[in-house]
């Protein structure tokens, strides 16, 4: 039997897998350097949590979380379709910051910094996912569905079209493709999965507050994407496990938890820097970031 701690870790890895794979779809396969992915994660979490608190069934909350994220992803892609590179990265960071400020300030809806407690654990067709082992199974199913769906998309002719837009947008336009439509579909779908991950996170922890969705939370996710290697789903999976397991070693060294959190962030950031300097393609990447 798996220990409780290990199950907890695997659930978090599952949630980060969905985040990493969905960001890989945008960054690696479509060339959209989105540094505001956490906004979609947060939108999914808050949407799902608020609906669950007023009594909606889990599956609807879960889907609504994804759809709200997807809608805002579509709007953002519409607004930003003409900018690229570092400007795009900054605008998406800005988007994340605005969403974070809304969570913090729309007191009547989100309870601001106090957060939302008492988010119910999921129940599907009368089966409650109250213990963590069953929750792990739920997360696993959704991770697998995400993986195979994104794999299917990226292997399909449409996926090749995405990569063509990434590599040479002008040439793809000349071939008569609507590159804006292609990119916004990818962006919206990426946001949809991040929203689902947010819902899973909210219903697992059963409490959310804005601090989980601040700008800097992007670093572990973007590290996963870049360390694993752009446009490589396998790399993303391996990197998620490696990056999330390595800092756990610190726990056994016996650091107090107030130091553990920032130490973990430093490790993610250092990994990212080392990869950017020494191995810009990541471990399994097929292309380099711009």
């Amino acid at each position, binding site marked *: 039997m798996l220990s409780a701690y290990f199950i907890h870790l695997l659930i978090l890895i599952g949630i980060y897998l969905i985040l990493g794979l969905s960001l890989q779809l945008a960054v690696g396969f479509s060339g959209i350097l989105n540094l505001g992915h956490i906004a979609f994660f947060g939108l999914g979490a808050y949407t799902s949590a608020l609906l669950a608190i007023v009594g909606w069934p889990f599956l609807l909350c879960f889907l609504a979380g994804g759809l709200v994220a997807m809608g805002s992803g579509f709007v953002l892609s519409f607004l*930003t379709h003409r900018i690229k*590179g570092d400007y795009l*990265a900054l605008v998406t960071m800005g988007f994340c910051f605005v969403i974070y400020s809304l969570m913090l300030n729309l007191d009547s809806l989100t309870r601001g910094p106090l957060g939302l407690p008492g988010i119910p654990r999921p129940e599907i067709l009368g089966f409650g996912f109250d213990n963590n082992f069953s929750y792990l199974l739920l997360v696993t199913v959704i991770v697998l569905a995400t993986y195979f769906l994104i794999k299917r998309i990226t292997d399909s002719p449409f996926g090749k079209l995405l990569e063509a837009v990434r590599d040479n947008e002008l040439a793809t336009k000349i071939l008569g493709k609507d590159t804006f439509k292609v990119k916004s579909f990818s962006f919206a779908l990426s946001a949809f999965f991040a929203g689902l991950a947010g819902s899973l996170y909210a219903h697992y922890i059963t409490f959310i507050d804005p601090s989980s969705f601040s700008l800097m939370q992007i670093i572990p996710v973007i590290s996963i994407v870049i360390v694993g290697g752009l446009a490589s789903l396998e790399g993303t999976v391996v990197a998620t496990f490696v990056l999330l397991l390595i800092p756990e070693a610190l726990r056994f060294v016996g650091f107090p938890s107030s130091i553990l959190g920032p130490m973990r962030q430093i490790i993610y950031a250092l990994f990212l*820097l080392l990869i950017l300097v020494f191995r810009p393609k990541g471990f399994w990447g097929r292309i380099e970031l711009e």
Partner: protein
Amino acid sequence: MVELGRMFYQILVNGLIAGAIYALVAAGFSLIYSTVKFVHFAHGGVIALSAYMLYLFFSLWGLNFWLAVFLAILSGPVFGVLIDTLIYRPLRRRRASPTIILVASVAVLLILESLNLIFFGADVKSINFFTLGKGLSFGPVIITSLQIFIVLTSLALLALLFVFMKYSKIGKAMRAVADNKDVAEIVGISAERVYTWSFALGSLIAGVAAVLISLEQNIEPTMGTSLMIKGFTASIIGGVESVAGGVLGAFLLGLAENIGIWWLPSSYKDAIAFVILFVFLLFRPEGILGAKKSNK
């Protein structure tokens, strides 16, 4: 109606004070950007770290206040040049794109913030050197002597920077590299050395900004991100490659925020900045003063 007029002038003055601080953040940032041509997002982290250095030297170690201020200001260029040498230079050497360096600089900012958390804890700190004097009344507005000091210091420093950039040899070399790196190198200016100078000078201004901010406000581990958003927004409003534009943008931003929180809760300040940033990046990425087309 009289009340409304008084509010208006007070908002104007509050905007000016906020703008004076943002102007220092933006000036340092723009100075660096103008030569190296990438977004040094960790600039805000350098400011936060320098503020903590003041707390360390003055409040924890009990050094003489002015010595502590001197050391805190100096720690700005030390950290700035260190970051450039350790992180950005290797990336430049392998010809990394500005986008990659931006991602790296966000990672650096996170490291700096985490270090603040580890060494100084999550609670806010304050440097109570100047006890809060009573506000002085100038007609309808109230302003503290510390705030006057902040505005004057900021303006004096910006004037000095202007003179330095215009007349000193290093300033001229920096402008040459900003304008055209290749030509500057042909006439014998070392771009790498100019980059180091930019980081030193930009971060020195950051050090001064850090001291002024910590005299007026609390010091928090994540203050760097929020300051960076302000400084960066100011630069984009004014034109990212122009230090003068950054200063103009900073005062406009200070005003916009203070007008904004007339209606909105004050914690929306950062969001106001980002909405303005958004609008400028989308519709006028070259800023008010920027002439070059930088919409890549």
